[in-house]
């Protein structure tokens, strides 16, 4: 038996990170998901992050699973257990393993140089040899090798084999016994080998707990697609783009399940794969103009293409919901890596004076809830609404509290005059501010002869007629500004978390930066540095943001882009003093951990205290 040396002897139950390095296109995603779900089912909170290339097959990919008894939502930045299944990245994986950590590799081919670090315990498992001995077909061997590393890891970190078997059975279904047996056989090969050859379990391991009751694991795109179904959206148009594709996939899957008439086979939804984003947004506007709840999922490049039409919908006052699952820019950027770099793009998309309603989910639960809310706002304010998500939220599985629904909920379709109401009024004018709230009434085309109106992107007056008259043009433009400004009390309010002690410091953050910020605040509190926290969830900004800035000497604005876009938006749209807002930025494209926040805040505070 090989002796594993423990340079870091402390036992860490339910608190470590394992990172699995594989080659994309080899089917490792299901193996990694199996590992993560097993830990989740054992009642232990997890964080899963997928780092993948913009490629179909053959390039390195990593999957990181943080086992976190404290249910943090961010990465730690450390790797305690590396499962190195890609020979091309062995060196890198070894280098990144924490001192005292472990590295599992396929020892079918001996790699003496992997033993070059004395502070890393290298665990060789002859996966390929064992699998090739048991399975024939090349593709099956590739897949089974993945299952074999699941088994090896299961032995090392003491995963519950019954839970694994249960998940494998669910995946294939009871009837596919040969598939279940085949996969379990592969898992067992890895499991038994490790048990027999190494001291198991490792000091870093998993123990049953009860901290995942009432939680699910879901990615944000799926949750947003589900939200569109519950919102009553009937029309979606899209052009395939990473990382938003799975949002429409989700919507379609749920529609097939819930929206197909069992008797007639008719679809109570319509999805169109457009020729490009210029068209997908046009279709959404056409459907929204006609009174269907309509949406499009896209990413930054799509927003750039849609911009002209977004301005049209803003000025013509047509409801539309746009999901921007942000990726890195500029241009094509890193298409499979994450950033929050479309904040300004979305806030002011299109030429001329425009400003849009934005919702910022921080996790898949909020993706679901804000998807529903986005349609309410789009129809109430008759304008495009953006749900600004990102790759981290959209494509990673998150542990979130179970989604809830109230069967008494009914959509508020906004100010729409129906045939009966039109019959009663003398004349209908599309852009007249009857109620003084900046929101005019609309009708659904074809509903009544009196309700006819013309939607145009060219200058129009409050009666909906073409005009080149400056006053009449300005009158409409000013009313729209009031309308959008009024949305600040309707968008989701910021969430403020007060520090345990009174403090001059505050953090403002947004979306997926929440996880690192929450953990950073905890860590800093441990060092007696206390920080109040405001998480922005909507734009136009609620007045609470001004008040929060006023109440602190300095505000650290944490976000994932180079140019401090959230900070710029706050400076532009509130009375906040620019100097007070200190940017803390992350824009590598990788999902951040809390260290950049901790270090950033400390550096700023040191700077402040020097003064």
């Amino acid at each position, binding site marked *: 038996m090989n002796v594993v040396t423990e340079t870091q002897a402390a036992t860490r139950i339910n608190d470590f990170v394992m990172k699995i390095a594989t080659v994309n296109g080899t089917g490792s995603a299901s193996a990694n998901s199996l590992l993560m779900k097993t830990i989740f089912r054992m009642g232990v909170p997890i964080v899963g992050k997928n780092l993948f290339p913009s490629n179909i097959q053959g390039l390195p990919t990593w999957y990181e699973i943080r086992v976190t008894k404290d249910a943090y939502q961010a990465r730690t930045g450390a790797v305690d257990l590396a499962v190195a299944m890609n020979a091309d990245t062995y060196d890198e994986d070894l280098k990144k393993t924490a001192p005292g950590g472990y590295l599992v590799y396929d020892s079918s081919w001996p790699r003496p140089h992997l033993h070059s670090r004395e502070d890393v315990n290298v665990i060789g498992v002859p996966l390929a040899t064992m699998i090739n001995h048991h399975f024939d077909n090349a593709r099956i061997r590739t897949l089974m090798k993945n299952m074999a590393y699941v088994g090896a890891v299961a032995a090392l970190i003491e995963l519950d084999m019954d839970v694994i078997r249960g998940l494998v059975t669910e995946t294939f279904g009871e009837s596919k016994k040969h598939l279940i047996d085949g996969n379990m056989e592969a898992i067992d090969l890895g499991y038994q080998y490790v048990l027999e050859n190494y001291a198991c379990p490792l000091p870093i391991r998993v123990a049953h707990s009860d901290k995942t009751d009432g939680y699910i694991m879901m990615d944000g795109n799926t949750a947003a697609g589900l939200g569109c179904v519950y919102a009553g959206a009937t029309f979606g148009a899209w052009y395939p783009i990473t990382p938003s594709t799975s949002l429409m996939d989700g919507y379609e899957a749920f529609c097939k399940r819930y929206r197909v008439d069992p008797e007639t086979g*008719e679809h*109570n939804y*319509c999805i169109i794969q457009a020729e490009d984003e*210029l068209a997908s947004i046009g279709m959404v506007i*056409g459907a929204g103009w006609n009174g*269907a709840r309509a949406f499009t999922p896209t990413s930054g490049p799509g927003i750039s293409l849609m911009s002209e039409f977004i301005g049209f919908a803003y000025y013509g006052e047509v409801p539309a919901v746009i999901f921007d699952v942000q990726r890195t820019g500029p241009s094509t950027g890193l298409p499979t890596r994450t950033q929050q770099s479309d904040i300004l793009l979305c806030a002011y998309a299109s030429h001329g004076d425009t400003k849009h309603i934005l919702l910022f989910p921080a996790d898949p639960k909020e993706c679901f809830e804000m998807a529903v809310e986005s349609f309410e706002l789009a129809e109430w304010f008759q304008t495009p609404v953006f749900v600004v998500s990102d790759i981290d939220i959209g494509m990673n599985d998150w542990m979130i509290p179970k989604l809830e629904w109230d069967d008494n909920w009914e959509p508020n379709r906004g100010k729409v005059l129906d045939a009966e109401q039109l019959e009663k009024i003398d004349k209908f004018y599309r852009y007249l501010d009857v109620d003084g709230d900046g929101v005019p009434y609309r*009708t659904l085309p074809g509903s*009544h002869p009196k309700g006819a109106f013309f939607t145009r*992107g060219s200058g129009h007056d409050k009666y909906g007629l073409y005009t080149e008259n400056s006053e009449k043009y300005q009158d409409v433009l000013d009313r729209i500004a009031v309308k959008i400004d009024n949305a600040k009390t309707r968008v989701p309010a910021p969430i403020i978390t007060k520090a345990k002690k009174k403090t001059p410091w505050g953090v403002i953050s947004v979306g997926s930066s929440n996880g690192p910020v929450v953990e950073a605040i905890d860590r800093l509190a441990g060092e007696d540095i206390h920080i109040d926290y405001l998480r922005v969830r909507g734009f136009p900004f609620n007045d609470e943001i001004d008040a929060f800035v006023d109440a602190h000497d300095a505000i650290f604005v944490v976000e994932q882009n180079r140019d401090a876009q959230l900070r710029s938006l706050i400076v532009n749209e509130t009375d906040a003093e620019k100097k007070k807002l200190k940017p803390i930025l992350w824009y590598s494209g990788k999902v951040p951990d809390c260290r950049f926040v901790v270090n950033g805040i400390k550096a700023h505070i040191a700077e402040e205290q020097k003064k």
Partner: protein
Amino acid sequence: MTSIAKPRIEKHLLRNKLGLTLRDYEGGMSTLCAGCGHDSVTAAMVRAFYELDLEPHTAAKVSGIGCSSKTTAYFLGQSSGVNAVHGRMPSVATGAAAANGDLHYVGVSGDGDSLSIGLGQFCHAIRRNVNMLYVVENNGVYGLTKGQFSAAADFGSKSKRGEPNPHTPIDPVKLAITLGATFVARSFSGDKTQLVPLIKAAVMHKGFSLIDVISPCVTFNDHKGSTKSYAHTYEYYHPAIHADYIQPSEEIKAEYDKGEVMKVELHDGSTIALKKADEDLNPRDRGDVLAYLSHHEAQNEVVTGLLFLDEEKQDMNGRNNLPEAPLNTLPYEKLTPGAAALADLQKEYC
């Protein structure tokens, strides 16, 4: 889209089956140049909807940007409309048609709007067989920006300054036929007797109906040397297949010589009677029509009429299995899976 309200003078005007007069199908006053072909198309549109006995508000007008796109303000004043961004009317029409298939969609575009910036959307609306009338008011030139050649300008056709166009044209008719369009026609703004029944047939055809209307620009492209002028079009005019639209209740009154007429029944029981100038031309054979077009175009002829028709293909909403009732009318009960389903679903995410 400047428009001035027209005075309504209704005395002694004929009324259709709904008791409406032609005036009920008109829109605002045109602000196009005097003599513009587009105004004749507008008049034909008014006449066609009047003769179809359709309630004006059951139509929805869509257009892009350009002189032609302005005309949707000049007819069907009681219909709603969208004057969208340049070249992207087809996508708006697509979304609108998906949300409510009960309206009659009338798209008006130009050769600039449809064949350059909007070429992609034009092609894809055809592919999807969106149920709409799509009129290209084709004058070979950009009017609002003062006379640049459009992509429809013929090779060698001369600009107002006398320069010949060095590029080959994009022909919307041939393009539509090759893309699988189900109703393809060409007409001329100067031939109302041909255009009015064509519009009627196109509105009632269930699927994408293209009418490419040669509609001369009197200001920038009506000179000698232009192949899109009134004079040139009249000289080389070649009506190939005349189409009459006959409502379901109507008797087929027109006298046709036996063997010359092809009758095509539409989904609603109405009929299109096709009268062919050339017996050999088969408007249901794409290859045949393309060959015919090439042959006559080699002689500079402008071939017009309902050139291709296919009533069999499903329209977009049919292909998407959309319900009988428009999506925009579905009650929320039909759309929400409810709380119990949500709880049940999440068992798969544990």
